[in-house]
């Protein structure tokens, strides 16, 4: 009987990570290959083929990818059209009428995903309280849809009518008309994608959703078909922006929820493994080739947010609150017009890659700086499968060093420090900017480059503990396997929190029931159904809500006083004051339903036994001086092993830097814990 295997495949901008574990969570294979931009599904299958795993032995494949993200960023989506309320055809063009760069007379707004001629108006109107002011006429609806279909090219239609978040009736009727006239065309309704007020942000999100849906559907279908052809008979799960996974059927219809799913697997894995080591409060730091993703984790749970921008276009969907900075191993250092030394956001990516990869890159990158410093070495990089040429790095840094008046090693030091400062700023955005002190958190470093930078960055921020979990270089793939099935529900219902009301939390009852019904259809053989509820609330007259968690025991009968208390505590924490004389309004209800424990629990015992060796000594350059450092192989360090800095621990998929004054210790969960001595 063949082993029942689980496979996580994560496709990033530079690398594709693959991890294979058995049914008890034990590692079978970890693999890292260059991504194949343009043919992502093939890349995933090739990685699988290379890993030598027979797909017939695999029971679950969990997949994460940037395909939806790149569809928007590279404008490769479906031919999309939009239907809006009469009189509002230019919502996508006017946007919020503002610009992001002051003093720039050449500024232009981000181009919408579809041209004006693909936007049709229908005569109808709903008021802010949901009343129908002007009924939608069937004839007019048909006329509008037919006009959009006329040239036969539209593959996907978005519908965003004013105040549809209060009353979706007209959007639903348009949907029926479209399906009747063009059964093959994808339909996306704003009242389903984002039932929240502010028409531009809702229209933008709806259009993004409509734009990526056919592409994602096609991609997932190709992936599934190819997997099946290769003998895979198990379940295919797909990572969502919210850090949970959904079966492929549900993922297809909710394509927009994949748009920011790229970094979510890593966060899930890092949060799980940090908690397993006794650190439920953590900042995750995922540094790859192109960018670095940072997320705050409290009590083992990632922070969530509701809005971001992609390619300049607003997107509101529940997502893990990740701050991304354009600083990765491939980020290019340069000098700006003012003579300032800068790093990123331009990256050498997978092609040509950093100069030391010898794939044609000539510009100085962060990885080249690390090579100059001697922290990454040829023999160990990607398990020795790949030659690293330090001379090329040195040559790539030369001209820039001359231009800014530094020696090459001093420049290398500076590049690393600036990259660290970018990342430190990202950490501050998820912590200090939200009223959390980063010094109360452990920094969990992973991705190919994260563990190389983490300790220095921790020093910068006063963080006194750095964790490097097992398989840190492919943790974003490993994390996919740990993610639970999860789906988010949101519903806008404006309700003043008034003393007389006792039914304010009743809408949650219906949402929870919906979650239970959906969960019953998931192909999972485990997991406990859990719902986390939250209210978006604000003081009457404010324009932005605070998302305030509502404890299960308050539902459904808590009164206004208890709800007020929850809100004011949150407001005080965020802004430093409360305004007791002001009324409070509930804007939206949120429910996150998951099958807790449906993801895999990592197997953390094992590892080599015995004593660790002394490692090997090699010179490195730090702070402009040459220092002897000890180099250890990660695989040779047993539980309890201690390594004092300056030292480098080389793993198959990542490199860990232990600075002078720091000590690293392998704990019982196979995680390396670094602390200042």
């Amino acid at each position, binding site marked *: 009987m063949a082993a029942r295997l689980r496979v996580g495949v994560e496709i990033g901008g530079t690398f594709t990570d693959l991890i294979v574990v058995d049914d008890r969570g034990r590692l079978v294979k970890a693999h890292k290959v260059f991504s194949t931009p343009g043919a992502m599904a093939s890349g995933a299958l090739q990685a699988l083929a290379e890993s030598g795993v027979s797909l017939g032995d695999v029971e679950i494949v969990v997949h994460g990818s940037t395909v939806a993200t790149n569809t928007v960023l590279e404008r490769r989506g479906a031919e999309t059209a939009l239907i809006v309320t009469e*009189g509002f055809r230019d*919502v996508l*063009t006017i946007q919020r009428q503002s*610009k992001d760069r002051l003093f720039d007379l050449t500024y232009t707004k981000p181009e919408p995903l579809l041209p004006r*001629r693909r936007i049709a108006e229908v005569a109808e109107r709903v008021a802010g309280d949901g009343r129908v002011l002007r009924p939608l006429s069937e004839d007019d609806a048909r006329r509008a849809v037919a006009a959009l279909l006329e040239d036969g090219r539209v593959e996907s239609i978005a519908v965003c009518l004013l*105040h549809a978040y209060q009353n979706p009736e007209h959007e639903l009727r348009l949907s029926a008309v479209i399906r009747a006239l063009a059964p093959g065309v994808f339909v996306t309704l704003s009242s389903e994608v984002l039932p929240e007020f502010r028409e531009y942000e809702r229209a933008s999100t709806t259009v993004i959703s409509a734009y990526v849906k056919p592409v994602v559907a096609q991609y997932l279908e190709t992936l599934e078909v190819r997997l099946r052809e290769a003998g895979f008979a198990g379940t295919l799960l797909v990572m969502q922006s919210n850090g949970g996974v959904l079966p492929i059927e549900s993922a297809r219809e909710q394509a927009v929820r994949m748009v920011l799913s790229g970094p979510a697997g890593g966060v899930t894995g890092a949060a799980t493994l940090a908690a397993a080591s006794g650190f439920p409060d953590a900042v995750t730091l995922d540094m790859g080739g192109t960018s670095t993703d940072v997320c705050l984790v409290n009590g083992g749970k990632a922070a969530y947010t509701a809005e971001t921008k992609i390619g300049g276009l607003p997107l509101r969907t529940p997502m893990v609150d990740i701050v991304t900075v354009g600083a990765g191993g491939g980020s290019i250092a340069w000098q700006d017009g003012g003579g300032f030394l800068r790093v990123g956001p331009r990256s050498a990516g997978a092609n040509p890659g950093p100069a030391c990869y010898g794939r044609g890159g000539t510009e100085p990158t962060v990885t080249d700086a690390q090579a100059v410093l001697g922290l990454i070495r040829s023999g160990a990089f990607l398990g020795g499968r790949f030659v690293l040429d330090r001379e090329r790095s040195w040559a790539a840094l030369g001209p820039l060093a001359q231009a800014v008046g530094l020696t090459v090693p001093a420049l290398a030091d500076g590049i690393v*420090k600036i990259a660290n400062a970018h990342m430190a700023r990202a950490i501050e955005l998820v912590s200090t900017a939200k009223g959390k002190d980063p010094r109360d958190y452990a920094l969990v470093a992973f991705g190919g480059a994260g563990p190389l930078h983490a300790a220095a960055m921790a020093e910068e921020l006063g963080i006194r503990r750095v964790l490097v979990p097992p398989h840190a270089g492919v943790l974003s793939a490993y994390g996919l396997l740990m993610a639970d099935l999860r789906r988010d529900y949101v519903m806008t219902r404006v309700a003043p929190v008034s003393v007389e009301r006792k039914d304010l939390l009743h809408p949650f009852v219906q949402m929870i029931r919906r979650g239970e019904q959906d969960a019953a259809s998931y192909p999972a053989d485990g997991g406990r159904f859990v719902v986390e509820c939250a209210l978006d609330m604000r003081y009457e007259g404010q324009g932005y809500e605070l998302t305030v968690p509502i404890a299960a025991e308050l539902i459904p009968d808590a009164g206004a006083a208890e709800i007020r208390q929850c809100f004011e505590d949150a407001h005080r924490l965020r802004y*430093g004051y409360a305004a007791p004389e002001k009324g409070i309004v509930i804007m939206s209800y949120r429910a996150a339903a998951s099958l807790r424990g449906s993801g895999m629990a990592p197997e953390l015992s094992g590892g080599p036994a015995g004593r660790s060796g002394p490692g090997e000594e090699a010179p490195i350059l730090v702070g402009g001086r040459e220092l002897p450092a000890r180099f250890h192989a990660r695989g040779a360090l047993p539980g309890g092993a201690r390594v004092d800095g300056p030292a480098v621990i080389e793993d198959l998929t990542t490199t860990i830097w232990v600075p002078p004054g720091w000590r690293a210790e392998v704990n019982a969960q196979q995680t390396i814990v670094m602390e200042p001595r």
Partner: protein
Amino acid sequence: MTPPSSQLDPVTLNIVGRTLDAIAEEMGVNLVRGAFSPLIRETRDISMAVLSPRGEIVGMAQYVPILLNAMGPAFEGWSAEYPLEALEPGEVIVMNDPFRGGQHLNDVFLFVPVFVEGILGGFVANVAHHTDLGGGAPSGNADATEVFQEGIVIPPMKLDVRERWETTPLVRMMLANVRMPETTLGDLRAQFAASRIAAARLGALFAKYGAAVVHCCMDELLARSERLMREAIGRLPEGTYRGEASLEDDGAAGKPLTVRVALTIADGDIVVDFSDTDPQIRTFSNSTLGSTVSTVHTTILSVLGGADIPKNGGCFRPVRIVAPLGTAANPRRPAPSRARTNICYRIFDAIVAALMPVAVDRIPSPGFNSQTAISLSRYDGGRWRVFHDIITGGNGARECADGADGMTLPLTNSLNTPIEAAELEFDFLRIVRYGLRPDSGGAGTFRGGLGIERVYEVLEDGIRMFGYSDRHLEVPPGFHGGLPGATGRFAVERDGRITRLSARVNTLLGKGDRLIVWTGGGSGFGLPTARDGERLERDVRNGLITGELVQSHRPGAV
């Protein structure tokens, strides 16, 4: 003392510089999220900055430029009365006085000194447009002839935030003189909360690197920008350049109000002289000195700043302004100035016109360049509710690009109010149309940006309307043969009849009335007949150019 800048390493400089901007950015987010009035939380008519101990901008966020560059003159205004040496931790300065460095009354400034190791480290500052600060009419008073009819004047005043500032005499006095005290207090709280958090961040930056290093970075950031700005100025031929532009109606005598400017470039300096500008007027289109300074700085930075010059107060060091007292660019107290943005746009236009012969490669043809703002207010016997909306227009075309359609103009950067936000908040109105005005952009090799149409239906009787705009009669032609964009208009549709309103207006609207606001387009650049056929076809396909205007673009057209 601070170490000489040559010892400063580029890495620390980069990190400190980024952090200063980040502090301002976070202050902006907190102000928007905490605020109560739609004008701040949706429209974002605000700005914020981190200032050096001498009041120069060293960190900024991307909100409204004319308010951002207002920090300098406001700082000068209050520091003339409160010596910096006498400031103490916990004190903050509040002000709006247009004759002591402020803008128009609605813009309330908050300056918070930050101390480090017992010395003054710098300031965090923010300014927000408060929807109503009293005066003769809600939100704005088109009939005012003195500042006193525009609202309550706050000279620079110190508050001690270690005590309960909400109940101090200043704040109680303010709240007793405004129409929506709860909203005003809520917005002030957001300003205070945002600056308190920013002050803590700046304090942390000082604690981490030490005052000497941070001050050295500030000096270096300012010095570099100054040097780059002087280089940019130095690339223009020396000499004196003149330009002018007019508001079409002074609101009193029915005559145009003309800004005349003489720019003298010599030795890397620019002197901007308003001596020939028309005298101040009795109505609210004056630009007090703070607004003039802020506008000149914004304009010079936009035209000469390029993408490569890091933007901060150092950019303003080469600029000197001569604005004789009694001109419309520096009126005597108590001249009203509520609608100052439009005379400020003419200052922008005049400077651009002056520089056109030597900098045509980097300046656009005239845009609609008229702040168009309306408010609809209702008093229900218990309380006032005031909806204030800012509608932008078309931008001018450039040498190599069409003007942007319905995008903010160069001095302001306020957002629109989402229709759904407006209707949820104000049940006495409905927005029934909001879109681009096809054909409103001036024809040209590159066409001007399109203006906007926004139509409001009033659902109750007794709604007071205030509005101001300009270029309702004429838009200047574009450069090198570009045609002018369409004009704007205010009108009311009542019982099927459409009546035009003045461009500066207080009036009363009743149930069923529709207020129609048109903003104008930007002017084109170059001859229309040279327009690329493909661009023209695309505009036609998308319905942005129709009918006769297509013809004017055809080769052979006159």
